[in-house]
């Protein structure tokens, strides 16, 4: 149910409970975004000779490095967009800011941390690998291993219960799946194989 009513991506804040909470949240986000933008030139000027130059364009920072940071973050303003892919102008400016921060020596972790400080942990695209959040990363792996172990154990129990005489390979079963063998089989064999293959797919056999 990827749903039909794709309500405005440009107007939908992350918290959705009541209309007033909605508006308040959006206002706060806008203020946060604006303050970030306003503070950016001053932040960039420290130790950076040309604050408005694009560090990606003049080769000080690679586009991949910016993408690595931005694709780990959500667009703080709209639902479901990655910061790296968001078409909003504000997001393009945030990406440019990330590039300038990287150029002035900030580590990707520090930049992400500043986003978390501004917008909360929900701005990260995936939960961090720490504390309580280990649960999300490890549970599927544990479940898969537990399932495999259970299958192996019950499989062994079952195969022990089966008398060995029953566990002999039947030539038909091998043939059925791998098709006829290489070489020149007798025409009657081919015919028989074809008939067998026809039947093998009928249910209830």
């Amino acid at each position: 149910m990827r749903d039909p009513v794709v309500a405005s991506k440009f107007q939908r804040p992350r918290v959705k409970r009541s209309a007033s909470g909605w508006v308040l949240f959006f206002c706060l986000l806008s203020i946060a975004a604006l303050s970030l933008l306003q503070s950016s030139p001053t932040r960039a000027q420290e130790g950076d000779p040309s604050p408005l130059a694009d560090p990606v364009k003049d080769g000080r920072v690679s586009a991949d490095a910016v993408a690595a940071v931005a694709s780990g973050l959500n667009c703080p303003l709209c639902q479901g967009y990655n910061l790296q892919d968001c078409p909003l102008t504000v997001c393009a400016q945030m990406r440019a800011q990330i590039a300038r921060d990287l150029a002035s020596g900030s580590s990707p972790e520090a930049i992400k941390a500043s986003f978390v400080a501004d917008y909360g942990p929900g701005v990260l695209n995936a939960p961090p690998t720490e504390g309580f959040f280990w649960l999300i990363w490890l549970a599927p792996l544990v479940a898969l291993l537990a399932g495999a172990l259970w299958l192996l154990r019950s499989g062994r129990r079952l195969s022990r219960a089966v008398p060995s005489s029953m566990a002999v390979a039947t030539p038909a079963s091998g043939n059925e799946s791998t098709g006829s063998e290489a070489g020149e089989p007798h025409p009657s064999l081919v015919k028989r194989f074809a008939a067998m293959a026809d039947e093998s797919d009928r249910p209830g056999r």
Partner: protein
Amino acid sequence: MVEAGFTPLAELGQLALVSALALTGYAVVASAFGAARNQARLIESGRRAMLAAAAVASLAMGCLLVAFVVGDFSIKFVWQTSSSTTPALYLFTGVWGGQAGSLLFWSWLMAVFTAVALLGRWRADQALLPWFTAVAAFVTGFFLLLVVFKANPFERLAVIPPEGNGLNPLLQHPGMAFHPPALYLGFTGMTIPFAFAMAALLSGRTDAGWIQASRRWMLVAWAFLTIGLALGGRWAYDVLGWGGYWGWDPVENAAFMPWIAATAFLHSVMIQERRGAFKIWNMALIILTFSLVIVGTFLTRAGLVSSVHSFAESDIGGWFLIFTTIMILGSLVLLWWRLPILKSDSQIEHPFSREGAFMANNLLFMGALFAVFWGTLFPLFSEILTDQRVSVGAPYFNRVAMPIFGMIVLLMAVGPLVGWRQADPARVGRALLRPALASLLVILALAILGVRRPVALIGFGVSVFAGLVTLVEIARGVRARMRRGEAAHLAFVRLVGRNRRRYGGYCVHVGIALLGVGVVASNLYQLDLDRSLALGESVEVGPYSLRFEGLEASTTPDSEIIAARLAVSRDGRPVTTLLPRKQVFRLREDQPRTIPSVYARPSADLYALLGSFETSPERATLKLYLNPLISLVWWGLIVLVAGTLTAAWPDGAEARVLDAELSRLLGASAGA
């Protein structure tokens, strides 16, 4: 467009809805009593009530469609999701453009599917019929109940507005006209096998009968769900404008999870057909698939998990919770009650066998399902337990779920070669040897060409391997027939025709292999750039050079469009012009739509978006992507669906039965 006005459609529709609800209620009671007391007349009466319910539900659906066509804006739902300027194609899209309409659409499909199953000659065990009717009518009835009491599409407005609100512009795309109906067909279609399974449990006839009756339904529903997911991906690619097709969004996951469970069922059901084993497990998988359909609907409709795709929240959450609980608990209790008669007829003799391969397949599918489920619901747990709202996006799913899907693709290469009961490892090894060597060569070639990321090499290698093994298997079958003197194309057609299920399945596997290559390439090797270009400036994207040649403004009856003209050249030769656009709808100025412009080639798509623009001097901020091999994603999906339909198509004997039945029905209606 006929002139707007007040029509009695709402009253007629409402009447039809209420009678449909009453009829399904009667069908549940009559069928269940008839079955319990063994009264044939009551059973037949229940069956006819369900058929009548489908007829009146169709009438209600018809009323809503007509209301859209004549533009009866006195009906709140019609006013909400259409306007007199809405193009004809998207008038019907309005039906699923909101809660009430989609719930009606859902109940209608459910009723029609049930009627189709009940109309034909009942090939399954007669004892299943009344219980099937009761379960299907119960599910349909629940949705009708919601439509009548909670989200009524025929609700009137106190004042008749002169003009409708208009359909959300994002939905005005051909993909959106067909994506929701395809998904709903898939979801409702999956309810039919569930009803068969419950009928088997209730009647105690748990032999292979219910499986035979429901397998094709599941296959067709699975095909529709696949088409729905594919169209949704295409819609996202064409409309949402982020250069991708799948975002691991909660609603996408909600539709994907039943797909995973159903895929597991379609495989494990073969063990039951062939060996009479895994009966309990197959029941559990059917229950799981149906529960995921309902839970998915519940999660997203009720707004528990937020998403770009969600409806506006509504108060149907509580109702869904009760219904979901009843269905899941009820079916599990039934399963537990019938455990004694669900004993396997045979046992798994050796792990290296087709049975073992299917077990591994099911284990991996369940692992993938859990990973997706866990990631989708984790934000909820986190908020409840730690009061922190986190988001779980692509990085989680790529790291946790994708490796499991990779293992599934690898198993897909080996599994079909492994014989039943106990396979000969040497024989399987011989069959795999050449494709394995060929895939190693492909990996080597890719590494030499500059593909260095281990994940990409593994992904490509596994997909190519799986594709080659399957193609070799098909070729082997064709060669065997050619030795009997058949021409190659005839041999192929007859081979597939004689073994639709097996070769349809192989075709699906080839589709998955193509999809795998496309997904790996377009995810790991996507190029993206942000550029602000002044008039006449150029930018290089991969092999292409794009020059900004100015902005173009245009208007449509309901919107204004600004486009950036980009001349694309390759090696100095002009190849095309891209026009990424921003469209502002007059009725919804707050929701500008960013329309990408794509130059699609088999090797890669050049994808351009207009971020913002200035008019004096002209300047455009662009987001540009180069998506390598994304065409394989679409082609893989097409091959996959073609394979599914091949497998679901009736074979010769079944076709004759169906023909006879059709002519009997036609003769009956001509005589009447």
